[in-house]
């Protein structure tokens, strides 16, 4: 079982994601609402996996991903996307994103995708 950090500006998404992860037996060690806060929480909690929403105010998910990957190249960051953010997805891959999970969440698919990332 892994330790997760959830980075998403939407309370709804954070809550649903936390529910799915905890149901699957994982631990959510922290939450953040933008890329900068996500980086700060990463430094503080050192989670096994980060789920990072792309569209966020202050610093978006790509910015948060870059900051974390730059400081912690071995970190595992999974991007959360509303379908359709293709340009952002390309940028995320180039910035080292480990996987993508689409919104709205499909619990089974999400847990399977995250398991692959954990086992990487």
């Amino acid at each position, binding site marked *: 079982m892994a330790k997760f950090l959830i980075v998403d*500006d*939407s*309370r*709804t*998404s954070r*809550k*649903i994601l936390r*529910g799915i992860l905890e149901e699957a037996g994982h631990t959510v060690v922290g939450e953040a609402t933008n890329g900068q806060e996500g980086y700060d929480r990463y430094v503080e909690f050192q989670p096994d996996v980060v789920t990072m929403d792309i*569209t*966020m*105010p202050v610093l978006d998910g790509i910015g948060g991903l870059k900051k974390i990957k730059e400081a912690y190249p071995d970190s595992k960051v999974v991007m959360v*996307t*509303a*379908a*359709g*953010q*293709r*340009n*952002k997805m390309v940028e995320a891959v180039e910035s080292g994103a480990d996987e993508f999970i*689409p*919104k*709205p969440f*499909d619990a089974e*698919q999400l847990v399977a995708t995250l398991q692959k990332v954990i086992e990487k």
Partner: protein
Amino acid sequence: MFGIYFGNYLQSKGLISKEQYHEILKEMKSARLKMGLLAVVNGLMTEEQAEQVNQLQQMQDRRFGDIAVEKGYLTKEQVEDLLKQQGDQYLLFVQALTEHGYLSLEEIQSELKSYKKEERLSALDLDAIKSSELDKIVQVFLKEPSIPPVMKDYIALIARNMIRFIDTDLRLEQAERINSIRLPYIASQELEGDFRFFVGISGEKEAILAVASTFGKEEFTTVDEDSLDAVCEFINCNNGLYASKLSEEDTIEELMPPAMYKNNTKINTEGAMYKVPMYISGKRLELIICMEAKWQING
């Protein structure tokens, strides 16, 4: 879908009660089988294939049948056959009305004529509603000539997702062009890229709470930051699907962070803005859309 429109008319005329209307709709919901289930029961697809198509449907704004044909699981003919098996919603509704003894066939025919006249529907419009095909029905309520085609596509998409994620009891009313509107609260998102786009959802408390509670998987009782956040997420997911579709046509749209306004918000535009009334289980929502125009939000 036919039952939702014609049933609402009959109810407004006092020809059937609210309870009778809901009873019939409930019966019809259980009569309509899911395409995936039908395909599996008919031995045309495996459960795994149906599940795979369902998952792809979550990520793409496409119909089950279209994805199954593309994957090679079904032929177009098989899809047509399955659609027929799902049941003719018009006939099912008429049958339910007569079997319950609420109205005779003659009365139904007469009321259909009145419905057509009062709602100013053409014969084609009525056929579209009878077909119960959502994409056709949506067009009936987008008669305002200045609505751009890309906006019509968006309204059709959000209607499909209302049915997919929120409530199958969805009814539209005629879209209206406006320049200004004042709303007690609104959940919204802007898109930027090849064109600017604003979409917001407001409406009666019960309707907002229904969207928030169903999509957010949490029982909300007041319209506040948390429930509006859930409505924002619903809009965000819609807009992701919309941007995805546009990108296939080389149109790039980027999603901005969703925003909510709670203090008697006024939206003005120098160009065209549209209000699309949508009723979920009888409660009114208002979809506000603005495209290719400057808008101002105060509140």
